């Protein structure tokens, strides 16, 4: 009798290899030709080595950002789906992205007058605000985390924050409005490693929680009562899942904007490949999500070159029809 996990381990390893391949190969692809020999030629000072700068400043951080954001969104999607016991949930269902977007909108619109600079920290702060509000709403009447109440609170906050976003956009001048809209479409051109380093601690903390959550999430899919009867502390699992997945989502959105569909199509594809066990679904989703977004970003920067196509549009063009197919297949 083989362990059901063992059968799918080669698939997970394969997805890992694909991710590494995507990260390594994507910096070699682009609208500009670069000479690899020159890129790694140490005798040319970096300041004047254009090939090296294109490789190390323009492309490699993008590849890493794509991997970080894609892997994180896919994993957060898995956790939210497990928490809400709904395969159609996304990392944005509970309002994290609406909060992040509001933060970014404020930073972009009032950026010149605010003491801090940049959409990234502002979006992270907005995400955390949204998470806190949703949690307080969801636990106001009940001691536990009812998924129905959680979902309602998330949907309500989503529309409330969307209204606030419209209000901020109303106050914005034309140019800021334009840039704000573009932020919403996603952009992985980070131009430095700083945004990655900034998001990394949050992602790392969340991933540690995900490792712990993998098995309890399996049992949670039997229902909260059934999981509790098997000795699981359902409340602490739900709380950990909610906060860690929200934190991960907030960090990912602060790096790349609210890129859609990665958090839903990747987990779904992965379940088709490795089954439902979260101990496989989580790592496999991280690898496939990372590889998928890295490839999408290569398209984003090459398809309309020298113009940049928002990566969110590419994931949406691929993800939208896929999502519909999923919905139809369900019925």
């Amino acid at each position, binding site marked *: 009798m083989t362990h059901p996990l063992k059968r799918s381990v080669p698939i997970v390893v394969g997805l890992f290899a694909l991710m590494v391949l995507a990260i390594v190969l994507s910096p070699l692809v682009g609208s*500009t030709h670069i000479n690899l020999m020159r890129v790694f030629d140490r005798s040319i000072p970096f300041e004047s080595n254009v090939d090296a700068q294109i490789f190390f400043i323009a492309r490699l951080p993008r590849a890493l950002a794509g991997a970080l954001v894609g892997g994180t969104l896919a994993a957060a999607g898995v956790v939210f789906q497990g928490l809400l016991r709904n395969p159609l949930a996304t990392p944005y269902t509970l309002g994290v992205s609406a909060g992040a977007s509001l933060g970014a909108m404020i930073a972009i619109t009032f950026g010149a007058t605010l003491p801090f600079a940049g959409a990234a920290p502002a979006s992270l702060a907005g995400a955390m605000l949204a998470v806190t509000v949703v949690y307080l709403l969801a636990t106001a009447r009940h001691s536990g985390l009812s998924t129905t109440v959680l979902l309602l609170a998330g949907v309500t906050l989503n529309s409330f924050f969307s209204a606030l976003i419209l209000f901020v956009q109303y106050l914005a001048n034309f140019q800021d409005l334009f*840039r704000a809209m573009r932020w919403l479409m996603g*952009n992985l051109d980070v131009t430095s490693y700083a945004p990655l380093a900034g998001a990394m601690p949050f992602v790392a903390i969340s991933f540690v929680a995900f490792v712990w959550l993998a098995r309890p999430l399996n049992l949670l899919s039997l229902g909260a009562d059934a999981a509790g009867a098997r000795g699981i502390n359902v409340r602490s699992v739900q709380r950990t899942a909610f906060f860690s997945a929200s934190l991960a989502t907030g960090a990912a959105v602060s790096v790349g904007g609210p890129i859609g569909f990665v958090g839903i199509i990747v987990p779904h594809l992965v379940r088709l490949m490795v089954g439902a066990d979260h101990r496989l679904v989580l790592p496999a989703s991280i690898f496939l999500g990372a590889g998928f977004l890295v490839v999408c970003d290569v398209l984003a920067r090459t398809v309309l*070159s020298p113009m*940049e196509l928002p990566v969110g549009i590419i994931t949406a063009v691929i993800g939208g029809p896929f999502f519909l197919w999923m919905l139809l297949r369900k019925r």
Partner: protein
Amino acid sequence: MDAVAKAMTIRFRHALLIAAVACAVLLQGARTTAAPLRIISLVPAVTEMLYAIGAGPQMIGVSSFDHYPAAVEKLPRLGGLIDPDIERVLTLKPDLVIVYGAKSDMAARLARAQIATFPYDTGALSNVTGTIRALGERLGRQKEANAEATRIEHGLEEVRVRVANQPRYRTLLIFGREAGSLRGIYASGGVGYLHDILSIAGGDDVFSDVKRENIQISAEQVLARMPEAIVELHGAMTPQKIATERGLWSQLPAVPAVKNNRIYLLSDEVLTIPGPRIVDAARLLADALHPTTKK
């Protein structure tokens, strides 16, 4: 008898028809040729043009974004591009409303209320003098409009001559980016009045080949196009913030503009309003790119 009657009727009908057409033509003519007395401009650039050709006293309302000339501060503000206050516009009983785009919702609603509109679209630099002359026609101020347009053309020519012997820097003209990083850069493409001004001011747009007014570009494109000068248009900022934002470019040391420290952050509003002050915008750019020619 019958035939005669028939012929008479037909002739009579023709006469009626001709009379009706004539009336319509006359009425139509009367409506368009009479110079409008009460003007609302929802476009800041056109507001400036109207004042420049002496139509200032006829102005009865402007957009929320109008700040120049100072006289506009006393006029009612009627909203902006996306949210014009149509009710207040109607209450003011204008003869002519300057709107963005002939196909806009605003234009359609004003047409329904039988109020004449003058549609405006930003475009190439030649559009500025073109619009001024068209306004002159419409308002019966051809003389003033021609004088103003000629003044602008001479002013621009003066700038062109001033920098004629200077090296033409390959220039990256940036309309906006994320504060605190080099992300989300919006740059000028190969069309539009700012692209044209840059050319007059002695710079060659590095994205001249892209036939669009503005494009989002990546850091890779900055490295690939290797601009010799970078001009950024910003909102008002403290000197400290300007220094921080300029310093960010050191992340791309291979770019000649960074190497030679030819990075200019300009925040004057004349750069974003394609009106009569466009000459000042051209001077500003020329002063930045070719400081030795500054007068």
